[in-house]
């Protein structure tokens, strides 16, 4: 057994898992506050990464400015999307809401392919050194940055929801929409804000991933890969999303390791999370941390 490779893979898994956790958090945020399952989450990553790429290449902005610009753009984009497309869907059955986001996902995926082409593009060099050595493990600089950013986002989420007025309003809305509304919380603003935040944070993840692998449509697959993570943690638990993300990140790398060393089935990296997902749903239909629905007639 090749322990060195295994450790490297587990560390990689943790790093990618943190990113899954961040994307999952956005997903849970939108789900908790607006009851919408966002199948277009991956497209947020994609659009954010492309906008940043375009601002770096065509506008020739420095990286930091381009990054900020694309985050601003995505915040506006998320809010607009909620106002134009998702607001009419309030109160519609689940299948309609799911299909609207699926439709958005198809639309933006092909729009991005149409505008930017289908071949992957890479960002201009941001860091001087490509990878550094920590405790004997090779860690890519961009991955290190992604870890730092992911941790910052998580802390920011915590502070926002715990200590800010808007965060409190969002938590109140998620807990009981009507009660929150009657106490003066603007539910409309909360909805728009949660989409804006989700779009911005996802775009950050998209840009970080784009720096590692280049920007291409494969970024939008992240939106689907995050499902096992959020289901594992329970659809409505932010902590669960992070834990689920870490588990899935490690799991796919470990599955890949065992597959390449012993089993030789192939493609385990992509498929293993979905097997796990089905098995979990068999035994815990509401995930590890999700709240069980209790229905009354």
């Amino acid at each position: 057994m090749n322990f060195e490779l295994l450790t490297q893979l587990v560390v990689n898994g943790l790093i990618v898992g943190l990113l899954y956790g961040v994307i999952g958090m956005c997903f849970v945020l939108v789900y908790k506050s607006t009851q919408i399952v966002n199948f277009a989450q991956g497209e947020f990553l994609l659009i954010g990464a492309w906008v940043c790429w375009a601002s770096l290449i065509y506008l020739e902005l420095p990286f930091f400015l381009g990054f900020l610009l694309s985050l601003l753009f995505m915040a506006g984009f998320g809010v607009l999307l909620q106002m134009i497309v998702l607001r009419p869907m309030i109160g519609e059955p689940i299948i309609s809401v799911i299909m609207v986001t699926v439709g958005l996902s198809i639309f933006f995926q092909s729009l991005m392919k149409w505008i930017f082409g289908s071949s992957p593009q890479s960002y201009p060099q941001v860091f001087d050194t490509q990878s550094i050595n920590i405790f004997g493990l090779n860690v890519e600089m961009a991955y290190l940055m992604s870890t730092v950013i992911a941790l910052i986002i998580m802390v920011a989420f915590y502070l926002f929801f715990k200590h800010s007025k808007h965060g409190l309003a969002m938590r109140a809305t998620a807990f009981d929409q009507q009660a929150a509304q009657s106490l003066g919380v603007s539910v409309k603003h909360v909805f728009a804000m949660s989409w804006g935040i989700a779009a911005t944070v996802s775009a950050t993840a998209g840009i970080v991933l784009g720096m590692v692998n280049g920007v291409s449509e494969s970024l939008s697959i992240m939106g689907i890969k995050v499902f096992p993570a959020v289901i594992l943690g329970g659809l409505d638990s932010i902590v669960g999303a992070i834990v689920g993300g870490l588990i899935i990140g490690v799991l796919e790398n470990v599955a890949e390791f065992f597959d390449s060393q012993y089993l030789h089935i192939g493609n385990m990296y992509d498929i293993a999370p979905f097997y796990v997902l089905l098995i979990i749903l068999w035994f815990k239909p509401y995930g590890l941390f999700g709240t069980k629905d209790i229905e009354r007639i």
Partner: protein
Amino acid sequence: MSSLTMRPCGDFRTSYKQDNTIFETKTIRWVTIFTILALCFAPLVVDGYFITLLIQISYLGIAALGLNILVGYTGQISLGHGAFFGFGAFASAWLNTSFHIPVFLCIPLAGFLTMGVGMMFGAPAARIKGLYLAIATLASQFIIEDFFARADWFSGGSSGSMAEPINLFGFAFDTDQSFYYVALFSLVFMFIWGCNLMRSRDGRAFVAVRDHYLSAEIMGVKLNKYRLLSFGISSFYAGIGGALYAHYLGYVSAEGFTLMLSIQFLAMIIIGGLGSIKGTLMGVIFMVFLPEVLESGVGVMKMTDWGNIPMVVDGLAYIKEMTIGLVIIGFLIFEPEGLAHRWTQIKNYWKFYPFAY
């Protein structure tokens, strides 16, 4: 009510029999029969390309009806219908080449095999619902897709597998024109079956599960049984549609059965109308003709001076996909009940013209 020629302007049905008729009025029955008869003569009148479109409508229509039984009538969500469609296609080709079962038997057998697989993946539906179910079926889509790519004995792996044309009493249905009759027969057969299913006890139980599953359970409808049965029937339809597709093209490869196909099936039934058999067909026709209309639209634009923009002409494939997305969103926002509902409204408008009461 089938004794009437026109629909009365109100609900005057007095017996269950009247409530359960397939055709509400005499006129509808005769129009349906004449349309089917007219379609029988279609190969003599219209050109070959149109026939291929009609065949496409048939096999997609059968599969979409299955999905509508699951989503529209039972209220379960499936994002894996495309994979089941593909499973039917591979299963039929596999049964034919490995066991030398005649093709016309392979098609229903493939339906039953797909039914088994569908019930296996639908089994979590007994415990979960709504979003969790949607994501579970999404997982099954990827798992089955992965299975196609890997199981060489079943699907021929990356090279795909060959499917022989249907052969009945020495007559091979290997041209578009002859296969058209097979497709038309299957479509009519499966749709009549679907209509009758919805008039039966099981059909009503499906609707009860959809409308209020707790009340349904209290009234003695076994939830688990009907959720699973619905998955089974829906996969059976998908399998039949897939098998027809396989024997029509003569060749099946794994690339076609992606998540996009599942989404397109969902788009068909949403555009047509959830929980409407007539709507299913409308939605399929809409989705089959939409790319054709776009293509000819761009073709016309190309000939004019102002319209010959390279970006539009080269990006046609992307525009088609974008339109599918836009159409889904548009229908859900502006006409969530689909074309079937719109059709009723148009009929009502003319029935009550000029006074709308």
